[in-house]
């Protein structure tokens, strides 16, 4: 440990992949990392050094760097978003690592996601899931006065817990079956808890389930890895709610 100086030396084993080619790990020595840097700022510094050497930088996605947009994400030492609980990769700080650590960084691995380059993934399949029914059908201009729809506070709180999903895909990356069950469940749960979302609840759950199968996501086998990896601590109780709704819809609804 050399935390007295506030700097550590690390070794990165980072995934490099070009579009349409097979990928491989590259070893990069990173001396003098300030421990108050975020993980992504560390990658920025690595890229600055690569640029100075005229070498191609490591492509990685990030945007808000506040843990809310869901853009960033990589598997760090085998764990999506890295070792800290309830945290996106952009909020992980280098003080959580030790001098001399070897850090393995790779993109999400899932059949439904494609690696575009290095750590950048195409997670468009998550958008396709929402397009399949993850909304309430209402056009601008048609809404009733807002307070005509009372929602008990605990219900609103539950809906908000589910709605906190940032769509990063860590749940898919963590699941041995690469299932998007937690992502779908968060959406289904949020909308069907609210009175506004009830009219379409049966259709929504059936359509989204069907889309999940067709997009190449796996099935849920209750491994709970998704819950452990979720940076927003979305609970698998939402999956239970989804399952209840699914059975109810499949058995008794007119929606098919």
């Amino acid at each position, binding site marked *: 440990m050399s935390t007295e100086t506030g700097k550590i030396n690390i070794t990165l084993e980072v995934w490099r992949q070009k579009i349409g080619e097979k990928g491989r790990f590259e070893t990069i020595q990173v001396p003098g990392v300030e421990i108050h840097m975020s993980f992504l700022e560390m990658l920025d510094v690595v890229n600055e050094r690569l640029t100075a050497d005229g070498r191609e930088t490591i492509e990685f996605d990030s945007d808000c760097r506040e843990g809310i947009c869901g853009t960033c994400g990589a598997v760090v030492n085998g764990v999506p978003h890295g070792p800290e609980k309830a945290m996106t990769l952009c909020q992980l*700080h280098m003080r959580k690592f030790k001098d001399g650590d070897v850090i393995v960084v790779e993109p999400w691995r899932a059949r439904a996601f494609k690696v575009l380059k290095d750590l950048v993934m195409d997670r468009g399949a998550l958008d396709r899931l929402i397009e399949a029914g993850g909304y*309430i059908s209402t056009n*601008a201009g048609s809404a009733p006065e807002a307070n005509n729809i009372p929602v008990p506070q605990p219900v609103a709180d539950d809906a908000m817990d589910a709605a906190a999903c940032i769509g990063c895909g860590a749940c898919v990356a963590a699941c041995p079956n690469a299932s998007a069950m937690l992502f779908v469940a968060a959406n289904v749960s949020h909308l069907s808890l609210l009175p506004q979302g009830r009219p379409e609840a049966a259709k929504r759950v059936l359509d989204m389930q069907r889309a999940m199968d067709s997009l190449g996501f796996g099935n849920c086998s209750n491994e709970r890895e998704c819950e452990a990896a979720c940076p927003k601590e979305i609970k698998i109780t939402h999956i239970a709610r989804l399952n209840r709704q699914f059975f109810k819809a499949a058995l008794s609804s007119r929606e098919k």
Partner: protein
Amino acid sequence: MELAGHIPAGPITEKWERHRFELKLVNPANKRKYEIIVVGTGLAGGAASASLAELGYSVKTFCIQDSPRRAHSIAAQGGINAAKNYPNDGDSIWRLFYDTVKGGDYRAREANVYRLAQISNHIIDHCVAQGVPFAREYGGLLANRSFGGAQVSRTFYARGQTGQQLLLGAYRALSRQVAAGKVLMLPHREMTDLVVVDGRARGIVVRDTVTGILEKHAADAVVLATGGYGNVFFLSTNAMSSNVSAAFQAYRKGALFANPCFTQIHPTCIPRHGDYQSKLTLMSESLRNDGRVWVPKEAGDRRPPNEIPEGERDYYLERRYPSFGNLVPRDVASRAAKAVCDAGYGVGPTGYAVYLDFEDAIKRDGRLAIQKKYGNLFDMYRNIVDEDPYLTPMMIYPASHYTMGGLWVDYNLMSTIPGLFVIGEANFSDHGANRLGASALMQGLADGYFIIPYTIGGYLAASPRPAPDTDHPAFEEAVKDSMDRIRRLMEIRGKRSPDSIHRELGDIVWEYCGMARNEAGLSKAAGMIQSLRREFRENLNVPGSDQDMNQNLQKALRAADFLDLAELMVLDALERKESCGGHFREEHQTEDGEARRDDENFCHVTAWEHTGDGNPPEKHVEPLVFENVKLAQRSYK
């Protein structure tokens, strides 16, 4: 050029209704024949795409990110204003209008602001119908809180994630239209040019950031919803990809850029700490409802905050502004923090921070109550700074957050190029020289859901058809122009990364065109920006290829436009020889250090016209007429 605002006649309360009646309608059966391009999927762009598609138009929507759900509106924490007056505390459309005009230091158009206040209530209705999980009272009705600079509780919120929930509402509405085949959604695209044919906006050129391919897209009208330019400071609370390039290309093609020097520096952000830093993190100003801002009474006092006794603390906001105290508007709070730090009273390792202290609130309401209100913010702070704000006061300092300036638009939100509409933060229209808290979300959604769907119809009904397609030579020219710009950057092969030059630019703008400005500093900055631009042209290094995903190239393209924008900002700040809102010219202040406006000479919008690269831009002026609000010295004392 005369800047025609096209403000409808009649009393302010009836202008919008009258205008909606007077706007031409497009026959419902014909709407699908009209192609509309929307660039950006934040609150304004997402909402516009969805509602235009709901009306039946054929929409093509573009975003930089991998998904339309990621735009930076998502990071807004505090809330969204509306004049519902649910708390029965004296709010009204008129009061929201009045507060917004006053908060903007009387540099916004009355008619636009009044319309915004009128629409605010419809936004809440619509968002609730979409399933936005706003905070509720025990009875199940919507909860409100008071928010920076307002003396009524008119802010609706969803924990500390209001922007996220509103954006996801717009994203779901957009996704529904994608599924219906009414919106073609094209992510991973960055706009590199606007195509103008016979004086009308007729399409855009975008770069596919995955493949590097330049694409041509034609349309009957183009809507820019590309956000603000706060990243000109390099360090800001904006997302990494937020940039000015789309707006700036439109400026180069003839759209006027209004009030570029009106930028908002947000008072409550986590202070700077290292030269590797990539961004600054906002701590919602809702924290000022319970937190008290202070510095030690003695300059250079290095004791830990908990060892400084009550009597030796200067609660400078409460002292200077007894009636508003810690809740003064953002520009006032930011400037006050800078003043105490410049005078040597600042705290933290750099001396550029002040305390935001929750000790009294925790004593009064209990830790649990504070945790319930601000838990996620406290966690975020603890994670970034490695200190526990329940036990020791937060350290905060102002940071670039929002830009009130932007492309000039008329009452229809159309720029000076017919067919080019600009909505949300990208336009200049509603916030004057300073934006009030919780008003950005309101404006983005008002523009997208409830204004553009009407006004664009009025334009389309009168525009010549059919629109030229991408075979028109103007598209090929625009592609070639973008390609040349990209090649030039790739071929420099110098020593410096785009970020290192952008960072240097940010330091210049922050120092001389930030919270306080003066003639000497601005003139100096203009020279520094020019030499930095030379450095950029001669010594930039972009490794890799342009026919591939290349984030360094994206950064270089953005930095090139930020350099030009910075020059325009400085020029605008030099020309505006008064202080107003976020624009504080040190030469123009009252005896006790408050902003002094000059209504006789500067009660206007300044809009700049591009006259060719290397030529000075031409200045145009739109006088501001106040018929309903009496101009007064803003006072929060």
